[in-house]
């Protein structure tokens, strides 16, 4: 490289120590890459980053960059100190949607690396916090070229700005025995129904889908997703009694009592005198703990489906919110079931888009208008599974009580009828 390398005494400190160093990686691009353009970007990027370390301030500002036909998907970054570091002065990130479940072949990773070296900085993250592949560092012009190239072989941009964002799903049924759902199918059915809302930001704020195959919720969906879909089951936990006994034999009674029986949040497990295990499934809340500990002896039941929780989000603006149960259980076996789920997401986004304030997440809107108004808006009936406990304050007008009680009894009767019909059929 002909140009003078920036001194980076502070960043050099991050090359020490046993954990892999991202600074060493950027230096490799500066020193060893065959393309001078890439060398130059890496050099000036290191220069600007060192400047940040010295002054303890960031020097990137946003702007407007997109690809032809879309309005979002790129995080524009223009340097405020571009005169000192000209070769990285335009350093946009492309957010690209990963394959559902984050599966890759080494071939496709190489293909992506080749395209990215041609048009970008050669720096990439799998994945950003929303779940996108982050291709970090491209000029406005090259952003379009890179997108055209990878879009031709099957990759598309994710969301940025007030829009439906890239979704996330766990490894699930592909490798995990605790999966109660087809996470990949749910993931794609939901987010790919909204490609227009992903690519053309026109919603009040961001909207995220996350799908976990069981209540361990490895995707953190309750805490991070506006629309969380979590696999669960409603029949009995399956017990392999021989395996359960051998677990007690190997680990000991004390371990079994301290780490399984008494850790159950509803105390629904009993270890009997003959070391056999009994579960009061009626009171099991599907927390997953006993299944996590006794992976060979216990498995989810066969009557599987999903719970849907709506309104999770992070701090800005009213504080952190978790999602709230809106659908306690629904089956996801048939095409019709999937249509029902997609329809619920459409109703949610439509109602939120019409009723939210600017920059108001779905959960914040629900907080402002109350869950009942939201349920009314999306056409979902109230259910005691939606609450931790009923209201504690008497300050509410209740002159519609008789009608509402009547609705409840009618719904219960209807449920009973359809169960009987299903059993008869």
């Amino acid at each position, binding site marked *: 490289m002909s140009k003078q390398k920036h001194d980076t005494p502070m960043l050099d400190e991050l090359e*020490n120590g*046993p*954990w*892999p160093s*991202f600074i*060493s990686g*950027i230096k*490799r691009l500066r020193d060893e890459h065959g393309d001078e353009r890439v060398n130059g970007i890496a050099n000036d*990027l290191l220069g600007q*980053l060192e400047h*940040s*370390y010295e002054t*303890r301030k*960031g020097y*990137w500002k946003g702007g407007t960059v997109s690809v032809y036909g*879309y309005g979002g998907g790129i*995080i524009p970054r223009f340097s405020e100190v571009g005169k000192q570091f000209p070769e990285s002065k335009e350093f946009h*990130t492309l957010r690209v*949607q990963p*394959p559902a*479940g984050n*599966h*890759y*072949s*080494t071939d*496709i*990773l190489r293909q992506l690396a080749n395209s990215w070296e041609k048009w970008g900085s050669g*720096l*990439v993250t799998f994945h950003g*916090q929303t779940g996108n592949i982050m291709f970090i560092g491209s000029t406005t012009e090259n952003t379009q070229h890179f997108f055209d190239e990878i*879009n031709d072989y*099957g990759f*598309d941009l994710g969301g940025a700005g007030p829009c439906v964002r890239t*979704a996330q799903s*766990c490894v699930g*049924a592909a*490798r*995990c*025995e605790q999966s109660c759902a087809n996470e*990949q199918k749910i993931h*794609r059915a939901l987010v*790919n129904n909204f490609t227009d809302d992903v690519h053309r930001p026109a919603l009040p704020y961001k909207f995220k889908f996350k799908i976990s195959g069981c209540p*361990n919720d*490895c995707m*953190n*969906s*309750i*805490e991070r997703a506006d629309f969380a879909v979590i696999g669960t089951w409603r029949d009995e936990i399956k017990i392999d009694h021989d395996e359960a006994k051998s677990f007690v034999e190997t680990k000991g009674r004390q371990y079994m009592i301290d780490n399984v029986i008494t*850790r*159950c949040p509803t105390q629904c497990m009993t270890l009997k005198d003959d070391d056999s295990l009994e579960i009061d499934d009626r009171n099991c809340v599907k*927390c*997953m*703990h006993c299944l996590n500990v006794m992976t*060979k002896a216990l*498995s989810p039941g066969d009557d599987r489906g999903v719970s849907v929780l709506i309104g999770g989000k*992070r*701090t800005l*603006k009213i504080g952190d919110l978790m999602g709230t149960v809106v659908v306690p259980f629904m089956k996801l076996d048939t095409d019709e079931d999937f249509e029902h789920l997609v329809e619920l997401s459409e109703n949610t986004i439509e109602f939120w888009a019409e009723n939210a*304030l600017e*920059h108001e997440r779905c959960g914040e809107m629900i907080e402002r208008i109350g869950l009942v108004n939201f349920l009314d808006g999306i056409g979902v009936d109230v259910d005691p599974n939606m609450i931790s406990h009923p209201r504690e304050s008497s300050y509410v007008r209740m002159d519609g009580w008789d009608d509402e009680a009547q609705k409840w009894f009618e719904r219960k009767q209807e449920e009973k009828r359809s169960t009987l019909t299903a059993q008869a059929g």
Partner: protein
Amino acid sequence: MALADMRRPIESGCPDGFQYMHPVMIRNFGQWKFHDHPRPGVLRHVANSGETVWTVKAGTQRILDAFTLRKLCDIGDEYADGHVRFTIRSNIEYMVDDGAKVDPLIEALEAAGFVVGGTANSVAFISHTQGWLHCDIPGTDASGVVKAMMDELIDDFKNCNMPNRVHITTSCCQINCGGQGDIAINIQHTKPPKINHDLVANVCERPAVVARCPVAAIRPAQVNGKPSLEVDEKKCICCGACYPPCPPMQINDPEHSKLAIWVGGNHSNARSKPSFQKLVAAGIPNNPPRWPEATALVKRILKAYQSDAKDWERMNEWIDRIGWPRFFELTGLPFTKYHIDNWRGSRKSLNASTYIRF
């Protein structure tokens, strides 16, 4: 280029994962029977069919240069079956269908400088945000904090010596993109924004900025004859929410943007309902390039948790059992008025009982 010549995007959305998935995972999709944990960094899943898949998990620098990405691919081709995936915490996972491939794969990964581990009751890789390298509003460089911290926590990543798994996160601003963690190290600003009144009118959509403030501390004002915004500094909570929509309201301060540590965030439903993280320490200097003060506190909290928590207790469950006074005693951290919440709903966080441990 004329508009007519521009290539129209193919709105294909999220790609199908099956095309890249390991064949043994395709064949046994939804048909897995159980898993076990042969050693740290390795999971073994057995299907109803009897087929088995071994997963080797490795930590990387997360921000991958093309050379590192290719090296990971080379290892995947030579020692594994050419199929990988990435976890939510940016670890790479190699899947192999033959147990004999596991040890050579681990050797190859370690020889190349990657770190095998991060499974079960280890300290997992720190999930983090972008920082000074790329973000437009960062108070710190999360990537640097994480690199420096993982250097010190590497043995806890490679081994499974914790009572349960420990998820650590970092965030470079109070929006907290890093998310909830058993331990979170996040920027906490301590001074109101410094406003460049010459730029506000041209750069910021003023009503939107006013609306963005969580405590209604911003109002439109004429300053030096120019339309601008002013902040009621008595009301201001120094959160920085005004800075993204209005860059002339600079919130980042080399000295007064500090780090704070929060504990007990837990996303899982296992044993107890999901929980948000709680403030335990603040005023920690934002001290690049290696942030030693933050790392020392994280290690102190980890040590207390490791020695006092019972098997399977996550950070929040351990503290629920022993109580907050004991947590502050064991960690030696000061308890201050800032620990007592005054945000909406905060009364639920007060002790309205005589449940007191003496």
